[in-house]
């Protein structure tokens, strides 16, 4: 075991991990943050997407040491206390989640997009979410939700 220091959702966290852990394993099994999902676990599906220094990345293929000293944001950090992030709220209102397994990753990809581009076109939303697979919804409601959140954030 080695000690890794991570800044996750604004908190300084310290945990013991084996040296070969991924960021996803450290989040889920070291810190108990199980919102980020272990899907394909090899960089194809996007279920493990988190935001590192403002960019959506795949935590399942990121060595945990590469996250040290950087700002990590997971789905647990999107809401402000009990107040949902507009993207989360619009996912609820638009029925953009079914089984919900892909949702944390899609929320992170969406928030990373809107932080950089507050009024994306439908095409830009599709492109930004093209690394996140959803096997339930057919994506249309997801795009609707991100569009609606963008309209709320940047009216």
């Amino acid at each position, binding site marked *: 075991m080695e000690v890794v220091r991570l800044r996750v959702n604004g908190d300084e966290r310290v945990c013991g991990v*084996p*040296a*070969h*852990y*991924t960021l996803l394993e450290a989040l889920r099994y070291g810190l108990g943050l199980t919102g980020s999902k*272990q899907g394909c*676990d*090899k*960089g*194809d599906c*996007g279920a493990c*997407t988190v935001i590192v220094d403002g*960019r*959506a*990345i*795949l935590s399942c*293929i*990121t*060595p945990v*040491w*590469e996250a040290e000293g950087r700002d990590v944001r997971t789905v647990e950090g999107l809401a402000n206390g009990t107040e949902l992030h507009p993207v989360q709220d619009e996912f609820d209102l638009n029925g953009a989640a079914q089984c919900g397994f892909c949702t944390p990753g899609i929320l992170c*990809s969406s928030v990373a997009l809107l932080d950089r581009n507050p009024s994306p076109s439908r095409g830009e939303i599709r*492109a*930004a979410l*093209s*690394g996140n*697979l959803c096997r339930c919804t057919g994506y249309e409601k997801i795009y609707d939700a991100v569009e609606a959140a963008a309209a709320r954030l940047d009216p």
Partner: protein
Amino acid sequence: MLRLHPFRYHRPDTIEEAASLLAEFGADAMPIAGGTDLMPNMKHRLFTPAHVVSLNGIDAMRGIGFNAAGDRLRIGALEKLADVASHPVVRRHCPGLAEAAGLVAGPQLRNMGTIGGNVCLDTRCTYYNQTEFWRAALGYCLKKDGTVCHVTRVGRKCVAAHSADTPPNLIALGASLSLTGPGGTREIDAGDFFVTDGILNTRRAPDEIVTEVVIPITNGRHRSSYMKLRQRNSIDFPLLSVAIAGEFEDDGTVAGLTGVVSALGARPRVLAGWTEIAAGKRLGSRVIEALAERAWSQCRPLENIIVDAEWRRAMVPVFVKRALEGLDGK
């Protein structure tokens, strides 16, 4: 769940330190940058180095900009593919390269993967990029742990496909690569970097690091373009890729034209005879037809990807035509 094997993680600050770590641990060490190729491959037990040497702390391997003379564009090997794709200088002078970088995998992978890593991407094959369990069930393959090639059945040579998007463009642009190893630094033309061995398809020694990509920029009328065939328009590796770079006279006639096709064999193929067909002519439909026909006759894909090889071959002239038409206005 795919666990990694135990390893030690090193994060040096300089190229020299990284090179000396790689030299010290020899075959027990591998360099890592974005990790988008090596991490899945390690999860599949295709590589099990005891020491992983991260290059991400090396600031000297970052940056995009011209040399003092303004005739060479340098891209640090650690530059993320997303940044290469969106960089205004790259988009202006090397649109085909920017396009290719923007078509690698999906958005998260482009935020992680680097141009140096893309240049060094391991070759891919249906029988290789699988879990240890899957490969063991088949008795392994020629590229890793086995003696039989399941693609050719009888061949003694690995035919795993070169599957990176940026190298065909770098070759078409006449770019070179800087490598640093224990013996110092050397430059190699991107066109000489790849070999026809699917097991280890580059001339990079295991203890060498690709530190930068250097692209010559001419003042003439230069255009480039890139086309990629894949099953989905995101995430997937290419089934076929076509990169084209051309120099044009002021009247629009061709001074020089290079076409590179990849994702078919172990290394990108520079199409022969293109300048002879096109030199002194405009890229009209008859010339484009002749170039596409010439490309088709040189490409013979194998079943190294489980997509019909004849269909991939039939797509060669289609994508060559589209790439040639894409040169217009760039």
